[in-house]
């Protein structure tokens, strides 16, 4: 009986000590992590919409959307975070759209674990440039050859799945925004 008792005591005590130690470390570092996340978003926004001076957070369902205002305090557009399933894992995109939700100011891929050299090329400026001043209505489309309409972008050769994922994630999020803001 002693053996079994010893097993139970040792494992549970070790777990408790680790739990306490971890939660203590986490609570110390929690603000810093949030601060980092906020700073990353602010940097992204300032890069995408230089004219935005003031940022106001609006809570929509469980996501946060940032309303942007320039010096004269009239709204310049919205910045939002959209994420979804890419080819290999999660893709997180920060995008800025004008206040009428028709044109994209630009996007920045914040986080992605796509295959290096192929899917990962969505994080390069070349791909993200295409989204500058891209019209969003009815919705963004991707093409394999050259672009005709102004709501189309060219997919990266060899990474069509990832490019399609980026387009779908943006379309879905903008659709949600349209109902929430218009409704």
């Amino acid at each position: 009986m002693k053996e079994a008792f010893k097993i139970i005591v040792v494992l549970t005590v070790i777990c408790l000590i680790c739990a306490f130690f971890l939660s203590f470390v986490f609570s110390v570092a929690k603000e810093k992590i949030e601060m980092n996340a906020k700073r990353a978003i602010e940097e992204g926004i300032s890069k995408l919409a230089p004219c935005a001076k003031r940022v106001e957070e609006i809570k929509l369902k469980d996501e946060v959307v940032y309303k942007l205002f320039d010096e004269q305090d009239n709204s310049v557009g919205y910045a939002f975070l959209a994420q979804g399933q890419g080819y290999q894992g999660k893709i997180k995109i920060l995008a800025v759209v004008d206040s009428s939700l028709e044109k994209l100011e630009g996007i920045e891929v914040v986080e992605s674990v796509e295959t290096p050299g192929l899917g990962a090329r969505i994080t390069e400026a070349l791909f993200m440039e295409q989204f500058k001043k891209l019209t969003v209505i009815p919705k963004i489309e991707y093409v394999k050859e050259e672009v005709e309409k102004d709501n189309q972008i060219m997919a990266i050769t060899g990474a069509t799945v990832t490019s399609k994922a980026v387009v779908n994630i943006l379309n879905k999020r903008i659709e949600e925004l349209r109902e929430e803001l218009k409704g």
Partner: protein
Amino acid sequence: MAEIIESKIKMKKEFIKGLWKEHPILRQLLGMCPALAVTTSAINGISMGLAVIFVLFFSSLVVSLIKKVIPPQVRIAVYTVIIATFVTVVDIFFKANFPQISRALGPYLPLIVVNCIILGRCEAFASKNSVLVSLLDALGMGLGFMWGLFLLGSIREILGFGSLLGVKMMPPEYNPLIIMILPAGAFLVLGFLVAVMNRLELRIKD
């Protein structure tokens, strides 16, 4: 006096063996998962190496301290929980202070928890030797792991991206070998590295 000197030599031997003779990746073939996955660039290699040293050092310390108390049935469970705790500390530390490294390492930082080196060293070494020796062994193994990762990372970065530590190395018309970044390239490069290591070991022996 003799034992002190003798034990000093033993200590030095324990430390040195991790760097070359019993190199964790190239000789013992432990800790391959992060070694192959993360080394798409030299920077990743170094940061993963540093994280492994930290975790290996502290887990060997804790394991060698409490090794007498742990009943054999729960030995693996307890060791892995301790290792997991230290890895989470490293993960939180990287997220707080170096967000871009934490993004670069991505899902592979937690995989140190199941990194065969750490449990391998704890199971085979720290649970059988005194504290100081296991710490030296941990440091040796950690440093060995790091330079192994750095070497692997730089080879793959030079061939795959044409740059080293972000600095352009190759002439512009060099089009990078994408395979070096893909999993297949990692296996091949490591295979040849292990072969080179065997060759060197052979020349030293005869």
